[in-house]
């Protein structure tokens, strides 16, 4: 079975600050992918970053980076220099051979 836990239902930071969103997961599969998706008020799901589990190097996309700790089954997202447009719901997800499962989400608010 695959499960994802996001322990922070809501977070709020000031513009330009750095924020880290937590995610832990569980899976019995050896090959899997990890994702962070952003869902703004429009409810469109937008990929933020993805990580193949077999890659040890942490993925980075501009201001977004992950801290992937495979042994601990942890996959946190760091947003640097946060911007007002980063305000959204963020979902951590795990893709196995068949299922794509997400956590309950973290609602992030960036304050001016």
């Amino acid at each position: 079975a695959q499960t994802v836990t996001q322990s922070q239902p809501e977070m709020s930071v000031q513009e330009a600050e750095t924020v880290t969103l937590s995610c832990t997961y569980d899976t019995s599969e050896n090959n899997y992918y990890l994702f962070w998706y952003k869902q703004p008020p429009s409810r469109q799901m937008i990929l933020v970053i993805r990580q193949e589990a077999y890659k040890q190097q942490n993925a980075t996309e501009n201001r977004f980076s992950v801290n992937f700790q495979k042994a601990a089954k942890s996959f946190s997202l760091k947003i640097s220099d946060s911007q007002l447009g980063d305000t959204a719901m963020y979902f951590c997800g795990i893709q196995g051979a068949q299922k794509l499962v997400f956590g309950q989400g973290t609602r992030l608010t960036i304050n001016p």
Partner: protein
Amino acid sequence: SQTIHQWPATLVQPVGSPLSLECTVEGTSNPNLYWYRQAAGRGLQLLFYSVGIGQISSEVPQNLSASRPQDRQFILSSKKLLLSDSGFYLCAWWTVGTEAFFGQGTRLTVV
């Protein structure tokens, strides 16, 4: 290009009426297909997934069913809607080496 179409965007249905939501995918073959439901301000609950034509796996026992009559078509149905079926429904697809692609979603209100 890879696209996904989901319709309708909004739907208001009376209790006890049937439901059919459709999702079609373009630009790929043999994708994994998914239906999710999202209650207001809540997480994404996986309802059904399919790894091939006619292959449906249910995650949550409920008033809904899913079918995959063609490789790139995924349908969510109900014979009789309940008030608790209200929510935002998302269809998605994935294949190895890609991100997951999501439809625009359907906002269903059961009245």
